[in-house]
Structure formats: C-alpha cells, structure tokens
C-alpha cells in the first residue's frame, strides 16, 4: 500500500515472452503445492497512479555462474520448493540449519556459487539419493551437481583440514577390507567401554547435542558369517 514499490529480481528470472509466463505459473504452483494456481498472481506493468515503481535486476555472480559448464543449469530454478519437500535431509533438519539464503537440495548447489569457503560443508549434507532430481519440474540434475561440487571443493582445498584428514584416513581404511573389519570391531568394543568424557568432548562434534547410538554386540559381517556362513 505504500506509494513506493521496489522489486529486486535476480537476472535469471527473466523469460523471453509474456506468453511463456503461463508455463511457469502452472509449473510453480503444481510443483509447490499441488494446486492448479496460487491464490494471488500479481502482474505489474507500471506504478499505480500517483505512485512509483522501480525494478532492480541483480547479477551478484549469476552471469559468472552461467559460464560454469557443470553448474549453470541451477539458474533454471523457479523456487517452487519441490526438492525441499521431498528431501530426507531437509525434512528432518529444516531450512535454518543450512545457514544460507537458499536451503534444501537447491541451496546445496546455489550457495557455493556465492561463497565457496563459507558454504563448503553444504554439498556434503546429502545422501545423494536423487529424489530432488526426480521431482524437479525444470529438470536440474541436482544430486549430480551436489556430487560435482564435492569434487570441486576438495580440489580447491575449501574443505576444513579435519574433514580432509578424516576423509584421507577413511579412504585408506575402506580400501583394505580386513583392516576395516578389525577397526569396526575395535570401535564397537571401545564405545561400549570408554568413559563418557572420552566420547563426549570438544573433538567429537557428533556427540555435542546428542547421544552416540549404542554399539551393536556384533558386526553385521560376523552375524552374517555365523548365521548364513558358507551358504550362498
């Protein structure tokens, strides 16, 4: 109702022709709510009489993103939220946990384009199950881009030192099955017997706000060997 109307719009929102708008209006509500259209869809061609209207088209890294062969298609996003509604991580963690303007699966691939260092952790917060890619109405290969961002961030050393060291150690261990099995048994035994202060301290971020799950009495591998051993 104020006389002044300022619309700030990312340049990727521009579409070629008015008649194309019907496609996007239909896609948006169907993918967001499952309804044929939103309650209010307003169109502004100019200010109301006696008022002022200003349109600010914002680039803020978008035109550079257009040049990233692996990532430019994320600019197709129409912000419907379908990827968030289907995402098992988003549905449990909620939008604030992403610490960025764009949350959910689409946030994982858009946020690092604005600041790789600040959002270096986000592409790792995914199970790569691909549900987001399946529901995306504009066919962005979201889970593939999440995976590609991990590679880019690791190559550029934007990941924290602790993560790099942990991933390197995990890589060594996972490439040696015998060593891996021995380590799992040792960890289960240790978890069952170590005093609390060894497990719940500043070094274990996973134990900061939650209890570590109870260690199983035997590993799946040893259970399988005992129950199904020799039978294929």
């Amino acid at each position: 109702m104020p006389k002044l109307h300022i619309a700030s719009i990312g340049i990727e929102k521009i579409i070629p022709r008015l008649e194309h708008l019907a496609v996007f209006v239909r896609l948006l509500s169907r993918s967001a709510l499952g309804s044929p259209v939103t309650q209010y869809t307003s169109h502004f061609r100019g200010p109301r009489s006696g008022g002022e209207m200003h349109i600010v088209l914002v680039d803020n890294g978008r035109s550079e993103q257009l040049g990233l062969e692996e990532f430019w298609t994320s600019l197709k996003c129409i912000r419907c939220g379908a990827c968030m509604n289907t995402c098992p991580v988003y549905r449990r963690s909620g939008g604030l946990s992403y610490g960025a303007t764009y949350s959910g699966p689409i946030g994982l691939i858009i946020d690092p384009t604005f600041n790789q260092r600040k959002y270096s952790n986000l592409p790792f917060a995914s199970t790569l199950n691909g549900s987001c890619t399946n529901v995306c109405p504009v066919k962005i290969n979201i889970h593939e881009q999440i995976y590609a961002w991990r590679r880019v961030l690791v190559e550029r050393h934007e990941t924290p030192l602790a993560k790099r060291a942990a991933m390197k150690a995990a890589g060594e261990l996972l490439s040696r099955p015998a060593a891996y099995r021995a380590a799992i048994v040792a960890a289960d035994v240790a978890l069952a017997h170590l005093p609390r202060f060894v497990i719940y301290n500043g070094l274990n971020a996973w134990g900061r706000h939650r209890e570590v799950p109870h260690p199983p009495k035997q590993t799946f591998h040893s259970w399988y060997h005992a129950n199904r051993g020799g039978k294929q």
Partner: protein
Amino acid sequence: MSSRDEILASVRKNLPRVDRPLPDVPLFDDGPPASLLSAFKDSLQQMGGVFLDPPASGDMLTPVRAKIADAKIVCSTAPEIAGNRDVAGVRKPQDLADVDFAIVRASFAVAQTGSVLLSDADLHVNAVAYLAQHLIVLLDPADIVVNLHHAYGRPEFRDRRYASFHTGPSATADIEGVLIHGAQGVRSLSVLPIARAAGNPTH
C-alpha cells in the same frame, strides 16, 4: 561502463554454447470442456471459492443482496450494485481497512484454474480486493477463457498497469501444513455469473 552494460557483457561472455531456438509453446487447448462456466465453477470450488447460482428469473443480483444485507460497510466498483463507501472518495488505500464487502467486476476468468482477473481498471484502488473481509466478483460468462495460455493473450496484460489473478479466498499452509483461509487477504471470495450491463462493455 554502467552496471547494466557490465552485466550484459558478462552474460554474453558466459552464455552456454547450446543451440536452443525459442520454443513454440502450444495453447494446450485440445479437448476443451463442454461448458467453460461449469468448468470454471468446479475449479473455483476446488480452490475454496463460492459460486453463486443466479436465480432463474427476477433480480439476478438477489444472491449478492442477500450476502451484503447485514454488512456495515460495502464498497462497490461495479455499476450494477451500489455500496455505501464510494471508492472515488478514497484518499489513501489504508482508508479501505474497515470494508466488510467489496463488489467488483472481473475483466475475465480462467476455467482451468478457477481464477478471476482483477485489474486496476476494475478495482480503482487495488487494495480494495485485499483489505475487504469478503470479496464478491461479478463475471460475464462470455468472459471466460479456457486456460492460462489463452489468458496471457488477453489485452489486459498489455494495457493495464496492474492485473492480478485471484483464485478463491486468501490461503496459506506454510505453517505445519494446515490450510488457513483469510490470513493475508479476503476471508471469502464469491463469484456471480452475470452479463455486463448494456452500455458497460469490456474496459
């Protein structure tokens, strides 16, 4: 170089090298409904709107008069029916905050979605369609298009400064997935099919 030139130069430099000509978007109007009015009615009701059945004979505005009988403040921009708040005398949009019923005529409607198009020419003060507690929309059955693709071919999108599709009453389900009507706009939206009075053609 202005920021506009900088952005355009950067877009040109980074434009993906894909050969994709502008697509021809069809109008998706194969197999239109037998009656646009009854298709509109179904879509409107699906979105929580109320369809007022016109009387078979006599005063066509009877359903509207019944709705506003007990209302304190009625603001009408339609020539067919008078209110008691003259929209021409409104100095600032905020003055419409106490309106119980607003009555307006839609430029046209969309059968596929149950939407009515309300433009600045229909509303006089745009805020009347949002600030009123209840909205009653008069719609000429001859003004219904089959779908949104046809809708965007209408002249209103080229000659009005403001035009808005209203589809049922205000609704949101942002919090806990519970549908709430009327939190941000009108609590109810009713549509009465009634032809434009002679001498009141399309704006």
